[in-house]
């Protein structure tokens, strides 16, 4: 059964069967990644453009690797932040890329809605690699894959997304995906970092991190942005770490064997203590490996649709 949509713009509205299919396909590719020759000819002859309007080395490398493992021809197109603000140049770039007859475009952009806009002006399959503070569907998928791999299920689990939910593209994708798969989702963070009306998505809001640890099976801990603008939302890094940071003492105190995810890169000593970041509860490096497998699955399923 093929995917029901020829683009992956977000996890909002993606049916359970599609997510299931992507996760199952990712399992197959996960095995490929364990082989001595980690390459399959599946997307030979297909051209994928990685269009990155925002530097994100990790996500780009993960996609690039996934494309190479599937034998696709991939082109990196990085655009410096300084030229982003001009709308004109954006449209010109897209038209240029369109003229090159590419099959798929993986797009990362600081502005929400850009992947949707691309679907209107390009015939290629569009994969959203993060648009503003909207969605980052492959991250949501790899988080779900990692949870399922470790805990053997998603349905019925209680998952809490911790941190700057309001300025995260990971949070929404997790919320949509996890809820579709039958998990109970909550968010926890300083109230300035919880976006308006999030409860209306069927998400519980928790302001106390100990409560979040006690109540949940999984914590997906977001990275806190440390630059000045993000800092308007909380008084100090020290205060954030003290009241929302996950430490070994905190896990111990709540007597809880809990699974911890983090999309990386980690601010050690802020959202996670070093002990937790390297500890037994986390699967952070597994997430990185799974990221490649999940992206292979998405590229493969979309690339072989027609």
């Amino acid at each position, binding site marked *: 059964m093929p995917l029901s949509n020829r683009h992956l713009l977000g996890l909002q509205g993606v049916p359970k069967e599609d997510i299931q299919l992507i996760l199952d396909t990712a399992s197959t590719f996960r095995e490929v990644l364990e082989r001595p020759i980690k390459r399959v000819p599946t997307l030979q002859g297909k051209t994928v453009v990685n269009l990155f309007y925002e530097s994100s080395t990790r996500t780009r490398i993960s996609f690039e690797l996934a494309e190479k493992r599937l034998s696709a021809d991939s082109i990196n197109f990085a655009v410096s932040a300084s030229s982003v603000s001009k709308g004109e140049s954006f*449209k010109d770039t897209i038209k240029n890329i369109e003229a090159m007859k590419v099959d798929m475009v993986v797009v990362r952009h600081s502005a*929400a809605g850009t992947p*949707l806009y691309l679907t209107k002006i390009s015939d290629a399959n569009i994969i959203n690699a993060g648009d503003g503070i909207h969605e980052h569907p492959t991250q949501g998928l790899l988080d779900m894959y990692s949870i399922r791999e470790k805990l053997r299920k998603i349905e019925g689990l209680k998952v809490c997304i911790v941190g700057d939910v309001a300025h995260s593209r990971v949070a*929404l994708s997790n919320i949509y995906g996890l809820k579709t798969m039958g998990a109970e989702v909550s968010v926890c963070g300083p109230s300035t970092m919880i976006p308006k*009306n999030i409860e209306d998505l069927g998400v519980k809001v928790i302001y106390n991190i100990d409560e979040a640890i006690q109540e949940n099976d999984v914590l997906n801990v977001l990275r806190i942005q440390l630059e000045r603008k993000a800092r308007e939302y909380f008084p100090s890094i020290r205060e954030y770490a003290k009241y929302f940071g996950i430490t070994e003492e905190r896990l111990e105190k709540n007597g809880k064997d809990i699974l911890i995810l983090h999309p990386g890169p980690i601010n050690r000593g802020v959202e996670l203590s070093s002990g937790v970041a390297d500890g037994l509860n986390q699967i952070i490096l597994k997430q990185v490996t799974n990221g490649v497998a999940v992206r292979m699955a998405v590229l493969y399923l979309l690339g072989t649709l027609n």
Partner: protein
Amino acid sequence: MKIILKNVSLFHPVQKIDEKEIDILLTDGVISKIGKINPEEISGAKVFDLSNKHIVPGFFDMHVHLREPGREDEETVQSGCNAAANGGFTGIACMPNTEPAIDSAEVVSFIKKQSKDHLVDVEVIGAATLGRKGEYISPMAELYEAGVVGFSDDGVAIKTSGILKRAFEYSKMYNIPIIEHCEDETLSGGAMNEGLNSTMLGLPPIPSVAEELIVIRDILLAEYTGGKIHIAHLSTKKSVEMVREAKRKGISVTSEVTPHHFTLIDDSLKIYDTNFKMNPPLRTKADVDEILLGLKDGTIDCIASDHAPHSAEEKEAEFEHAPNGITGLETQVGLALTELYHKKIITLGQLIEKLSINPRKILNLPVPNFEVGQIANFTILDLTEIFTFDINRSKSKSKNSPFDKRLLTGKALGVINKSKMFYQDEFLNL
């Protein structure tokens, strides 16, 4: 030249005229007879059969952005006036956020000169502060003498309470209003209304309270100084409630709403179409409901378009980076008739008051009367014609409208003013 408008329904809410099958004779654009006219009696008269069409006092849009001087690629005084005539307006007031801003008599005279020969009256709103920067009040006396009818820093609110207080005090000498774009910029800076939709779309939010804080600030300062405040494009439930309460207390406050704010809500943004991006942003159903109530009970005095032309290149950007604003001169009458009159929110009389009488009163301009000897200032309406708005037939230089292909009921067929007529896509000297 003599023309006869045959079989019109003549309607004037202030003069209490509501008559059917009337003929009007115009001689060189001046009303010379109202009643039954036998065309054979008047040799050489051009006859327009307007059976089932209404003639009402010419519409006036008190909130229009002409882009001249500065961005003539987006709109000129000429193209803006053509759009106004095409949309059923015989007069407009243009906002001062041009480049340079309208903060000197020279720019006022320039705009007046550009519009002199056009059918559409162009009134000018002067900047309230120098360069609209909010630091020093503009030369209000000089601007008044040059003919401005209001002061505004539209695009932004007057920056501080201190400068606003002085602007009220100074403008009071001339009895003309401060027209305020209500937005506390320390709270706004986003791309859409704050709520579930902004959370789901991942777009930076603008809370409704950013508008409301400035509305209440302005009302309090107007009360304190005795100045006149006109709230531009109000968009939230609380704004309507505060204006209603202020009016009840007898404070000199008036207000306007745009057609998009009584027609659309922020659900429309789900496709990230930048033609739905404006400031203030589209709000929620609860806000629209209160706006409709405000239109009905008179809290909202005027309907004004906030016509804001933008080039396609600039509008075709990422949602967050695209400029705010939409064109509105040519959809305004159709939307008001469709959404307000036909849905029985307001009567035809109220509609004409909000589109013709009240804006002129607020700006101290004479209201057109239907009397022999008066220069004809008419809008010709077909209240029931159903048509699809086609942006490609717009007279504006810019095409940034969210209402392209929208089905509307009720249309402005033409206008008459300054001894000129615009009818069936043609200008005619009378």
